[in-house]
């Protein structure tokens, strides 16, 4: 058990049910919905010290701490969440939930459709970032929160932006890390390759693979491999693997794994299959692709005119999936809309993954931003 003094310790995923149907952005109604969530820290009497953390593509509700004594893996943002950390659980009531369409406790394509008593599979409606936020809003209201801070990296940043626009009166501050107001064509292209890998797996069976002996594992693993390439960068890959061979110091002259980088991708693909659902991957990447604030509101400036929040935007120098130029687009539109914004491009060789790795610099910045300079980390 990787115990540290400033850990939130043992945590538990809880569940909240939305019985009524909600109206989706596509015009369809959908429900009931179960939401998996975790909370750390305590909500104050004014109910305004909440921070909602929004996970990236394949994250879950388990953002901090560990689930049992033998748990080797901490929550996905454990470096940033805990007593005295960036998201200080001594001060704040921190909430994290699994996204709508996910596969870690919140209703998604692998959930049982109450009407058929079978998993939804591709009968699950196509969802959007706005829909996910709508569900999170219900959770936050259920928890009694009146004012909150929203924070997220990558897809989580998209949700944070959406929060600030659709729930302007509730959101005090927004932290956007390595994110964008719309994915560029290159980003959509990589997601499309991932989806194609899944859709063309012989065991995909039009999404109806639940309970079958054979699963679309190969397709999902390839989708993850493509994803991992985009999360790193040339420098990070070179440092991590170079051209080193995995098992010997010379080529095998066959098509099995030769290079360390191949082995790494295969490992990432294999372990991903154990924890993620192929249908969820389709739905969530689609939601990410559809997200486009400028298109939806006429312009990015028009979108941000609707917010009442103060913003912190961060990007990383080596992130080519969500490049600094896209963060700057957000910052410039916020300035044009007359909003309070700070922006920092953090020097990092870690690619897009930096938002989960470069926690020391992020901690300094986030703490100062949240305390408005009163708590100099």
């Amino acid at each position, binding site marked *: 058990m990787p115990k540290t003094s400033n850990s939130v310790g043992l945590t538990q995923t809880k569940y909240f049910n939305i019985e009524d149907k909600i109206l989706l952005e596509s015009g369809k109604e959908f429900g009931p919905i179960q939401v998996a969530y975790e909370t750390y820290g305590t909500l104050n009497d004014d109910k305004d010290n909440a921070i909602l953390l929004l996970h990236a593509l394949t994250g879950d509700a388990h953002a901090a701490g560990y689930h049992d004594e033998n748990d080797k893996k901490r929550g996905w943002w454990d470096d940033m969440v805990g007593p005295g950390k960036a998201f200080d659980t001594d001060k704040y009531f921190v909430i994290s939930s699994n996204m709508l369409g996910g596969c870690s406790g919140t209703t998604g394509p692998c959930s049982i459709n109450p009407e058929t008593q079978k998993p939804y599979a591709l009968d699950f409606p196509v969802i959007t970032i706005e829909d996910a936020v709508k569900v999170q809003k219900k959770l936050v209201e259920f928890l009694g929160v009146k004012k909150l801070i929203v924070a997220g990296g990558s897809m989580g940043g998209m949700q944070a932006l959406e929060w600030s626009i659709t729930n302007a009166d509730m959101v005090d501050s927004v932290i956007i890390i390595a994110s964008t107001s719309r994915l560029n064509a290159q980003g959509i292209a990589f997601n499309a390759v991932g989806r194609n890998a899944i859709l063309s797996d012989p065991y995909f069976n039009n999404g109806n693979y639940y309970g079958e002996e054979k699963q679309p594992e190969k397709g999902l693993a390839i989708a993850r491999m493509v994803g991992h390439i985009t999360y790193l960068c040339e420098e990070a890959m070179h440092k991590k693997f170079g051209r080193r061979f995995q098992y010997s110091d010379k080529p095998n002259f066959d098509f099995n794994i030769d290079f360390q980088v191949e082995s790494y991708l295969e490992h990432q693909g294999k372990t991903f299959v154990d924890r993620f659902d192929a249908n969820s991957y389709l739905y969530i990447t689609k939601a990410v692709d559809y997200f486009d604030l400028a298109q939806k509101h006429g312009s990015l400036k028009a979108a941000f005119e609707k917010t009442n929040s103060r913003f912190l935007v961060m990007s990383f120098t080596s992130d080519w999936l969500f490049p600094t130029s896209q963060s700057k687009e957000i910052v410039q539109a916020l*300035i044009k809309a007359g909003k*309070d914004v700070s*922006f920092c491009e953090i020097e990092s060789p870690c690619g897009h993954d930096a938002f989960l790795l470069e926690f020391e610099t992020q901690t300094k910045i986030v703490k100062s931003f949240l305390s408005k300079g009163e708590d100099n980390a």
Partner: protein
Amino acid sequence: MRKASDSLHLNYTVITNIIEQGSKVLDLGCGNGTLLKMLVEEKQCSGLGVDINQNNVIESIQKGLSIVQGDIDEGLKEFGDKEFDYVILNQTLQTTEKPDYVIDEMLRSGKKVVVSFPNFGYWRVRFYLFFKGKMPKSRLLSFHWYDTPNIHLLTVADFFEFCKERNIKITKSVYIKRGKISKNPFNQVLTNLLCEEALFVIER
């Protein structure tokens, strides 16, 4: 011995005195945010800083300021016309790649512009070059020729000419010599010789 930082501090005080209570200010090349913080605290200004350096950005955020990391040579496109009461460029003009463009952009986005720079026409600077035959170094110009960020050094006379050519009005001038404000308004030739550092408020 006086240090460059004392002189900077005097600068800050001068600028803080010039700027009216509650102004909306944009501080370009704001460094670690010391001046902006003074303006926010002492003059209740609402302010935004811009700096290119990550550590400066972090230090400014730690002071509770709003700051955007960016390169002022790329322009101020995100700022609307006359959006700020004051745009400040303190001791930074000579480090920009396109000073003329930067000044144009400042005059566009600000009602008034505060600009300050070390005067390369100062007699000590002239003497340094004349007698030593080497690129001048001083408290305000502390770098070697090869590592200096000051790539567009100018004199007060250059600045007068620049403003005249472009119909830029100088509404206030403050001359600083050896860490003190020079009270006597010299004629322009003498000013260029005797002031070590100049600060102007300009408008168009």
